[in-house]
């Protein structure tokens, strides 16, 4: 294992809150507000980590395991994603399956933790989260299938290696569609507008936030951090897909990666600031669109 | 020896009329049964010499059916020993007719002369009619009347068939003063007039088929079986139907020897499948559990016909099936007798929770059902599989599929009824739990044991006998 390959994941671990902060900042700027400082995410985490914790008398160890596992899963996921022209530290045939199921691991325990409180609000959040994630699961796999069949490789690192998507220009169309699907999935899986709004204050309309109502202190910090890691992972994946046809000098690759991440942040901020939240009943359709895009892309890459 | 086989029960029957008490009559019955069984065992060990110029002789086919008959009879009379005795007490006429019934059926199995065979089969009708009327109720009377009339008419047609058989022999090599001896007919089969032979077989098939219970000629059967005392039903179903079947088989032997097997097979197959289908339809949702068993007999007569018709290994299967069916039906009817005594109703809807109220009978009831439905490890599974195999050997996939589908239909229908009766809590009106008499469950239990053994092990002696019997039908296993 090349030690350099550890750099992107480590960067992710360090910079994930910054990435979230960047989105918030850009989003605020887009609507003409000042927005929170870029490093607000770190401050929040630090503050939360210093706090004590209050646990509901109805909760069990599951409640405590939820935040931890979602953070651990998110952190581990970063090590599976190739970035900046380097292979991922953990790369093997079928590694993206592990990625998908790690995300599922975090999600399942977040949902279970929500159910552990016995609160009707958190149950509601759990129900919605299950709906969205169940629909998103096939879409994610369709996108991954496109990548794998395009490259004929079973490992993400190989499929997204520099130039892997370059063998033919006609691959551009499926890749573009896959990337589009991935954008939608990124929004859906990370509780972003238009699927969910992390900044809303009305519990009845939330999905993700309402699930974590009862968490506080370090647990909440873990949840926030895990969320940031997951967002980073999706963004990195998206950048990887977008850049896979190119083959540059390593330094250029690194720069391109950072630029790509910034572009994703800008894209998310743009979407969030220009769109309203969808009605909850429309959310399934949104996710299904992602599946359709990915399916269409798969069709294109097959024929 | 052959004469003794017939005379012992006949004389015992006459004695039974004179016997002073039920106990003595029962001893007479058991004595006759044991003697008969012993004689049959001896006959199986060493084939007895033909008598009356070959009119009476015991070929493997006859021996097979005779063996079933005597075994079943013995177990039935043993069962009759307990005071409740299912629902049949050995009264004077009852005991006498039972013995004469045995005698006439024995005569059927040993007749080698087709006219004598006819007379014997008619005699079985007459000897058994009073048995069916044993309860002296309106319903049993109706059943008896239908039995008498329908079977007599049917058998009359068989007589016509017998005449035609004689006619087919005229002018040929068998043109003899007495052409109806089976051996002569078979020997001269090649010279028989095929057209007349076909007509003869049709009459024999419809005639004996009526008595055998092939649909749509079976109409008397459910009535008689449900109204007769259960031990008698066991004999009717397990022995009498076989005798009628033997009548058909004798005709088949001649026809097959004359090279007309395909023609006869066609009709046997049609009758067989129609019987299974109709029985299945009438079992579905049947309300009277004895009638259900009766229809099951129709079904199994159909299976026998199909087996014989398919030829090849199917005929071996049919012979094996005849044995198994008789045992299973004996078991079921005797158990049904226990239920009838305990619950005093034949309605399957009013009987509940037998497993809890009468544990042994309940278990036997379920075992009997599983056996009759062709579940392993009971014998009928093997015979049905053999028959199925013969259908596939012959490339008759449609027949095989239909056969299985209809059996499944019967299974679904019967299982609904049987388990609804056996399982659950007994209704409030049900009899209190009490120890069942060992006499009441001994015979059925022995039958169940026999079925289990036949499902896991076919004794070589029986296997040889079955093979020889099947060989007579023109099929080698």
């Amino acid at each position, binding site marked *: 294992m090349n030690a350099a390959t550890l750099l992107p994941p480590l960067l992710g671990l360090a910079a994930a809150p910054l990435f979230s902060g960047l989105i918030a900042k850009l989003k605020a700027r887009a609507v003409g507000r000042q927005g929170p400082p870029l490093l607000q995410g770190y401050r929040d985490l630090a503050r939360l980590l210093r706090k004590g914790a209050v646990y509901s008398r109805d909760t069990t160890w599951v409640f405590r395991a939820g935040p931890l596992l979602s953070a651990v899963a998110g952190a*581990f996921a970063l090590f599976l994603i190739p970035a900046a022209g380097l292979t991922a530290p953990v790369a093997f045939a079928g590694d993206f399956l592990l990625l998908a199921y790690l995300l599922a691991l975090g999600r399942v325990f977040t949902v279970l933790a929500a159910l552990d409180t016995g609160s009707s609000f958190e149950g509601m959040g759990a*129900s919605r989260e299950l709906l969205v994630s169940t629909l998103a699961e096939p879409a994610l796999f369709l996108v991954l299938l496109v990548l794998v069949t395009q490259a004929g490789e079973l490992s993400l690192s190989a499929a997204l290696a520099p130039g892997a998507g370059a063998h033919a220009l006609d691959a551009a169309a499926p890749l573009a569609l896959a990337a589009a699907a991935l954008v939608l999935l990124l929004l859906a899986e990370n509780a972003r507008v238009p699927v969910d709004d992390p900044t809303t204050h009305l519990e009845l309309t939330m999905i993700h936030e309402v699930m974590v109502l009862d968490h506080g202190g370090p647990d909440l910090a873990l949840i926030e951090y895990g969320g940031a890691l997951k967002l980073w992972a999706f963004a990195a994946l998206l950048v990887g897909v977008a850049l896979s046809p190119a083959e540059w000098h390593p330094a250029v690759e690194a720069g391109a990666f950072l630029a790509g991440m910034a572009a994703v942040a800008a894209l998310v901020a743009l979407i969030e600031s220009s769109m309203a939240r969808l009605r909850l009943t429309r959310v399934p359709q949104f996710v299904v669109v992602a599946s359709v895009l990915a399916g269409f892309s798969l069709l294109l890459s097959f024929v | 020896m052959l004469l003794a086989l017939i005379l012992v029960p006949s004389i015992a029957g006459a004695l039974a009329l004179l016997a002073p008490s039920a106990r003595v009559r029962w001893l007479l019955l058991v004595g006759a049964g044991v003697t008969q069984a012993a004689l049959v065992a001896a006959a199986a060990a060493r084939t007895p010499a033909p008598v009356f110029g070959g009119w009476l002789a015991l070929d493997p086919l006859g021996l097979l059916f005779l063996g079933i008959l005597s075994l079943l009879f013995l177990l039935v009379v043993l069962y009759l020993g307990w005071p409740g005795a299912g629902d049949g007490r050995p009264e004077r006429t009852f005991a006498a007719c039972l013995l004469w019934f045995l005698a006439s059926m024995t005569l059927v199995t040993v007749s080698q002369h087709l006219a004598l065979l006819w007379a014997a089969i008619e005699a079985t009708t007459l000897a058994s009619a009073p048995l069916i009327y044993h309860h002296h109720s309106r319903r049993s009377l109706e059943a008896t009347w239908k039995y008498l009339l329908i079977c007599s008419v049917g058998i009359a047609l068989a007589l016509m068939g017998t005449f035609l058989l004689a006619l087919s022999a005229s002018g040929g090599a068998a043109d003899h003063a007495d052409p109806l001896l089976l051996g002569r007919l078979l020997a001269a089969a090649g010279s028989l007039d095929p057209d007349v032979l076909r007509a003869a077989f049709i009459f024999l098939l419809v005639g004996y088929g009526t008595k055998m219970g092939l649909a749509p000629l079976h109409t008397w059967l459910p009535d008689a079986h449900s109204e007769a005392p259960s031990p008698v039903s066991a004999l009717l179903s397990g022995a009498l139907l076989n005798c009628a079947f033997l009548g058909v088989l004798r005709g088949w032997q001649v026809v097959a020897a004359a090279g007309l097997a395909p023609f006869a097979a066609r009709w046997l197959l049609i009758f067989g499948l129609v019987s299974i289908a109709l029985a299945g339809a*009438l079992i579905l949702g049947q309300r009277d559990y004895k009638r259900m068993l009766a229809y099951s007999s129709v079904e199994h007569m159909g299976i026998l016909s199909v087996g014989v018709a398919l030829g090849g290994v199917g005929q071996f299967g049919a012979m094996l099936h005849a044995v198994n069916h008789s045992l299973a039906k004996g078991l079921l009817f005797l158990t049904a007798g226990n239920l009838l005594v305990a619950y005093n109703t034949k309605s399957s809807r009013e009987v509940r929770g037998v497993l809890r109220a009468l544990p042994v009978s309940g278990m036997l009831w379920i075992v009997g059902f599983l056996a009759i439905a062709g579940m392993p490890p009971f014998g009928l599974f093997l015979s049905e599989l053999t028959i199925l195999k013969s259908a596939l050997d012959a490339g008759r996939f449609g027949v095989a599929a239909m056969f299985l589908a209809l059996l499944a239909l019967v299974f679904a229908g019967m299982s609904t009824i049987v388990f609804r009766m056996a399982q659950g809590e007994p209704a409030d009106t049900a009899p209190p739990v009490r120890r069942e008499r060992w006499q009441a469950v001994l015979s059925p239990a022995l039958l169940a044991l026999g079925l289990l053994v036949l499902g896991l092990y076919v004794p070589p002696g029986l296997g040889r006998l079955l093979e020889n019997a099947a060989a007579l039908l023109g099929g080698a296993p």
Partner: protein
Amino acid sequence: MILLASAVAALVLGGLGAAVFGRTQRQAAAWGAGAAVLGSLLGLLALPGPLLRATTLTHASPWSVPFGSILLVLDPLSAVFLLATFVLAPVAAWYGASYLRTYERRRPGLPWLFYDLLIASIVVVLVARNGVLFLVAWEAMTLASFFLVTFEDERAEVRRAGWTYLVAAHLGTAFLMLFFAWLAALTGSFDFAAAPGAAALAGSQGWLFALALVGFGTKAGLVPLHVWLPEAHPAAPSHVSVVMSGVMIATGVYGILRAILLLGPLPGAWGLALIVIGAVTGIVGALYALAQGDLKRLLAYSSVENMGIVLLGIGAGVLGAAHGSAAIAALGFGAALLHVLNHALFKGLLFLGAGSVRHAAGTLALDRLGGLAHRMPGTAAMFLLGSAAIIALPPLNGFAGEFPAYLAGLRAAAELPPGGRWGGLLLVVALATTGGLAIVAFVKAAGMAFLGRPRSDGARAAREVEPGLVRPLYVLAAGCVLLGLAPWLGAWAVSAAAASLAGQPATPLLDAARTLGVVAPVLVAVIVAGVLARAWLMRRRRQAVADTWACGYDAPLPRAQYTASSLVAPLTALVPAALRAGVQHVRAPAGYFPAGGRVRAEAGDAFEQRVYRASFLRLRQAAERLRLVQHGRVQWYLLYIFAALLVLLLVEFGRAR
């Protein structure tokens, strides 16, 4: 082979001993469970050779029944399924020994007799190589399990379940009888010859395989042949559900695999067909599972789903073999076998957990449970672990089993010619969809039963069950963890069998497992590090206990919690109407001061109601019409005779001259 024979003998004798000498529950359990443990240990001793060195043991002796012979062969394929049997049977018996004590029965030995017979017949099914012997054992298996299913026959729904099961099993067996008889008609013997070859089968291969698929598929619970399964499995006592769900339905899979070996290489179209059937089974099973309100019914539907996953693997295997890709074949078959083993472990664990729930809380209705994690922590932890395993969360064994299935699908999608590619694609998408739905089902099961607050008095009064009902769970859970952390163990066990099916050494399977074998421990290490870090972080931190925050409302009732049905309502609303067959009984509150209202919802099975029950009713109606034949008028009866005679004469002689 002598070991296996003595295992069967021990089981049969022990069962009989329980029935004869078992006067008390304790004696009966000693005989019955003792025999199961002893028999399984003996049996396990016979397995290493076939599993690891691919040796084959044979025993042949004549049998006097028609076409029968005692031909027993222990090959790697049999050994894999035997392994599952011999692991699950003693654990389930151990559990049953305590579990059955809660029932008062006049003959406590009978359930043990049937239990031991069930195990014994499964063993014989797995080694029999003669059609007759196989069918006898097969039906013995059905019968033994039938009597176990109807153990609580005083309940009407149990009787109904038993009947459905028996009839379904019988129908399935009818297809098998046809299959074996036909095969025998072609090959001349009921003994399974080693692959008679496509030439001997001529054009019959497809038909034969279709028969086997229907017959064995009924046992395996493939949609739409599954309807008996969600009825029967919940009706049986839990330790029996374990054997039925973990091993018995797997014999259906075994049958399909054996048929593949018997019938020779199948064309690729069958691989596609199997994948389609597997996809339908998996998705429909998972959909129904997540809609269930009864914990054991949910688990039963999940068994349907998992058999679908197994079939996906088999389909990939057939596809790979047909296209000459030994790697895909090995991965597919290997994944199927691995999943069978894994499923036995986690489904056993879950059914035992469900049994404990019923034992403690008196109900299995998810809407009446809740909060059991506080009251029975051991059981809850094990159930959660089982749930995590069954939804394939890494690093547990479920993931280790589905991983090679995905790989097979992916490689098929990437490497095979067009026909095969679509199969691979469908496999991956179906597996992912199934997985997503299964997550919902088990989040619901575990979350509603064990987490939150109790929704009924029964759940409130629940206490941890006795050790005899908890410890068996630990054993199975340990198996789940072990096979998750060391997937190469499982792959190793199935590799010989997979190789025999694929025709090539199962190297890709072992490679994949080895990779996971590195990653999974690392993941565990990371998680453990996280746990330690958190503990370090939380040390000397103020931790308070309070009520759940209810957004300002200060008296949240347990009844205000989300219920099991409301949790999945948004998803079930998306299910196509054709698959929905639920019934809702609503008594709405009325008046100005309503006294109360009621809603009772049941998730029915559309296949059961619209296909099977409907056709049975139609059959009944047709039969009702035929009943008119037997109208009681003797004159007409006589006419029947003459009509029959006339018809016969006319047909035979009408045309001539």
